[in-house]
């Protein structure tokens, strides 16, 4: 009996099982990028437990000419380089899929599956025959398997040589052995493993001018372009690489060429309380400041965020969400801080949230959040997650309009004060709920005020009078409502045909959602989809819910957090909302969404049999 073989062109999933710290990351990235250079979109994902060295790590590459960038689920080819996770890795392969492994040491037949095609190659033997240094032997083994895979899949070798050339530009000593290792793998597989793999690629034209970038780097760059000068942070997965990217970009883009001085200040603080404290101090004093953190850090920042809300201090907080509660799953993805951030701190508080879908929006919203924070004089949360933040994602190129001017909000200057303009720090003069502020040191005798978290009258004078307190709290509510006019609108993707059902989704769910909508439409299930991009919710979101019989709310958390917010804050009837929830820490897949929605739809379409009244 001949074994089933998955045969696929430009559409498959490869997963690498490696040992952390073995140098596999750069080889795997090289592999992923080679498809892009051949015009075929890819979507890679790092899957790593919370460890540093010696423990398992995985890298999954979805090759997808159609451009579906969500996680697909299932593995067509497993490159099993980690004996520790062998059984688990072999189990994950789709029937008819492939197992590529290092057969330098023979393995008993019990280690294999009879519905999986096995491709063995003596990687260690080949590497050891050429390289003598232990570290080199390990590192080049990775490049050797990339060479072999490129021969098996028909990746153009010139593309890989070009990428290696770019990576080791100016480091000739490293360039040669890397090219050599690649060639060894390529030649071996070309001669001895020919025809063993049914997964092939062919040059396509589906990438266009898109870029390949991590969301954390994009958000950091957005903060550089948006004029952030102060960044205070405390290391926490998965947000640390954001502050590190900000540091790198600033060193390149923000050093004054004449003086050699830095137009930025980055503080790695002692904890998240200090991070947000520094951000509040800088924002109070008129500099644009932000912090990046994840769930546990948000919990710690809660008290300060209440102060910033009540004292009306601009602050940008980037929450790269991971699995909670408590330490939860630090290296896994979730959208489970939505409710917490919306209402963070004690007392009546409500905050502005932004939900970017990819690195492109991380950049745009990063810059926008700094404008919003100063215009609204309040904390603004950029709600990204590990899936967007720590994976390279194909997205539209970043754009900046050179005519753009920063919105510094309502700041009263010395000239305005001298001109006799009335200053009340907490006075609503324009009807939008936003008062004027002064920067410390503005004027010799006018405009100074005492900032406090305790209640005050519109002129910033301490007051416990009920009327003063209520005025202030209602003005804050008015300001929150006004924020809707400044926030990114939700985006509608209409179904191909008139649809009874609607669907609301946000953030990193986006690519899987679009793929699921296509799959559902192919089955005759038509769903209009609305991507929510900000909170407080605009009227369009309410109207969308009203105009559909049922609306699915797709989220990556257990408790349907956005749905709760829709009911609480947009006044949507909960009876018309149906949750589709994914919360195991892996990124949501199109297969999951399509299956859930089609099951619910068919259940809704089943008419109960009318029973005889007498029965």
């Amino acid at each position, binding site marked *: 009996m001949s074994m089933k073989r998955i045969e696929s062109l430009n559409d498959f999933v490869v997963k690498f099982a490696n040992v952390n710290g073995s140098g596999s990351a750069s080889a795997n990235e090289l592999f992923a990028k080679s498809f*892009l250079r051949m015009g075929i979109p890819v979507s890679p994902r790092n899957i790593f437990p919370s460890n540093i060295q010696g423990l398992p790590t995985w890298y999954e590459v979805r090759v997808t000419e159609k451009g579906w960038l969500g996680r697909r689920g299932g593995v067509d080819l497993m490159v099993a380089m980690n004996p520790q996770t062998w059984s688990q890795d072999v189990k994950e392969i789709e029937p008819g899929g492939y197992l590529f492994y290092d057969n330098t040491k023979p393995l008993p037949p019990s280690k294999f599956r009879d519905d999986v095609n096995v491709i063995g190659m003596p990687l260690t033997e080949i590497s050891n025959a050429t390289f003598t240094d232990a570290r080199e032997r390990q590192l080049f083994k990775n490049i050797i398997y990339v060479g072999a895979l490129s021969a098996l899949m028909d990746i153009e070798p010139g593309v890989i040589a070009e990428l290696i050339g770019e990576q080791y530009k100016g480091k000739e000593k490293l360039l040669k052995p890397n090219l050599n290792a690649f060639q060894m793998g390529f030649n071996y597989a070309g001669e001895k493993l020919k025809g063993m793999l049914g997964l092939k690629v062919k040059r396509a034209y589906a990438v266009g*001018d*898109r*870029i*390949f970038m991590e969301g954390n780097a994009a958000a950091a*760059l957005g903060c550089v372009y948006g*004029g952030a*000068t*102060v960044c*205070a942070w405390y290391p926490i997965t998965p947000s640390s690489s954001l502050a590190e990217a900000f540091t790198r970009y600033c060193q390149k*883009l*923000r050093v004054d060429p004449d003086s*050699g*001085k*830095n*137009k*930025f*200040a980055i*503080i790695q*603080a*002692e904890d998240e*309380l*200090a*991070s*947000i*404290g*520094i*951000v*509040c*101090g*800088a*924002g*109070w*004093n*008129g*500099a644009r*400041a932000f912090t990046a953190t994840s769930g546990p850090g948000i919990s710690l920042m809660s*008290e*300060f965020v209440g102060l910033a809300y009540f004292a009306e201090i601009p602050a940008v907080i980037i929450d790269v969400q991971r699995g909670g509660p408590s330490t939860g799953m630090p290296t896994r993805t979730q959208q489970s801080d939505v409710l917490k951030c919306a209402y963070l701190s004690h007392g009546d508080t409500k905050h502005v949230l932004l939900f970017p879908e990819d690195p492109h929006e991380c950049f745009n919203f990063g810059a926008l959040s700094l404008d919003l924070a100063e215009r609204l004089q309040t904390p603004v949360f950029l709600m990204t997650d590990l899936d967007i933040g720590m994976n390279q994602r194909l997205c539209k*190129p*970043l*754009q*900046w309009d*050179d005519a*753009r001017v*920063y919105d*510094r909000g309502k700041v009263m200057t010395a000239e305005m004060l001298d001109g006799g303009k009335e200053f009340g720090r907490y006075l609503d003069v324009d009807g939008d709920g936003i008062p004027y502020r*002064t*920067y410390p*040191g*503005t*004027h*010799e*005798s006018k405009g*100074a005020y*005492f*900032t*406090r*978290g305790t209640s005050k009258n519109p002129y910033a004078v*301490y007051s416990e009078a009920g009327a003063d307190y209520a005025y202030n709290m209602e003005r804050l509510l008015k300001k929150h409502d006004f924020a809707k006019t400044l926030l990114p609108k939700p985006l509608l993707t209409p179904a191909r045909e008139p649809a009874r059902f609607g669907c609301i989704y946000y953030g990193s769910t986006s690519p899987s959602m679009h793929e699921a909508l296509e799959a559902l439409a192919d089955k005759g299930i038509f769903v209009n989809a609305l991507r929510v991009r900000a909170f407080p919710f605009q009227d369009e979101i309410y109207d969308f819910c009203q105009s559909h019989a049922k609306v699915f709310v797709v989220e990556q958390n257990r408790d349907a957090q956005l749905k709760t917010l829709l009911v609480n804050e947009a006044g949507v009837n909960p009876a018309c909302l149906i949750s589709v929830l994914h919360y195991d820490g892996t990124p949501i897949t199109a297969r999951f969404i399509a299956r859930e929605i089609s099951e619910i739809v068919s259940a809704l379409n089943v008419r109960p049999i009318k029973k005889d009244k007498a029965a």
Partner: protein
Amino acid sequence: MTYVLKPKLHHPMLAKNKLGFTRRDYEGKVSTLCAGCGHDSISAALIQAFFQLDIQPHRVAKLSGIGCSSKTPDYFLGNSHGFNTVHGRMPSVLTGANLANRDLIYLGVSGDGDSASIGLGQFAHVMRRGVNMTYILENNGVYGLTKGQFSATADKGSKAKKGMVNADAAVDTVSLALLMGATFVARSFSGDKQQLTPLVEAAIWHQGAAFIDVISPCVAFNNHPGSTKSYDYVREHNEAVNRLDFWPSRDAITVDYSEGGVIEVPQHDGSIIKLRKLDAEYDPSDKINAITHIAQAAAKGEVLTGLLYLAPDAEDLHQHLNTFEAPFNRLGEKELCPGSALLDKINAGLR
């Protein structure tokens, strides 16, 4: 509860400084602290120092945490911006403010609960970073606003108003500041204006992290006979005022003693604090010497006052970070945004 506004009438004969300001221009709202509180004496010393240094009041930013001491920035420099932040977290807010505008003078006001308990971490790290500021710790060993619990600077064995005896070791903020890298470290007593005012002036001039621990007796929650060392006259005085149905009004404790001298200062609670003023020959530039002196004095039951340490080569956070000369809050898109041409290059590198 600042309901009372001070009249802004100036006596025409009031002395003016070089900028033409009178002392009144450095005052703030009427204090709401208990009469006789040491903290008000510290506010007075601050007013005097800024007046004498000819500093424009609005060029000072006052930041504080939460507590009795942290309320005081409302009671001086009324034309300066003030920020009553979060309990124990003033240092981080001050750090951020300082980064945003390096041209202002930063004054941090805190208490022993604020700095030595909830905010001990931020206290230590702000000293480590060398933030250019004057950090005044108004130290009374007690939580006043929540009515008399011990703070972490309370001496081991001291007795609280409700009768509890403190079994925990005291945090010595001066030693801690020294160890953490503060470049100006001093201690004084709220009642010793002669010593405190020049110390505040020197701290303001210092370009780096300047810390002054000011012992400041609490009149409300140390007014019980809690010590065997009590003076009879204090006790008599106690009894006399305790009949009144509001917080006892006291005269602030003042002291006047010479360099190298020791003075025993009776506190409102009847206990005695032994202050030793540093010799005129004391060399404050030697850090190890400073640490030794403080420890030796403590072993004798004395509290050393004066300028304990002044780093000869102090640097501040802006120097460490090599920041731009112009304040960040004055930079706009022209100075900060790299522009679209560079972004296109970045895009090209990401394909």
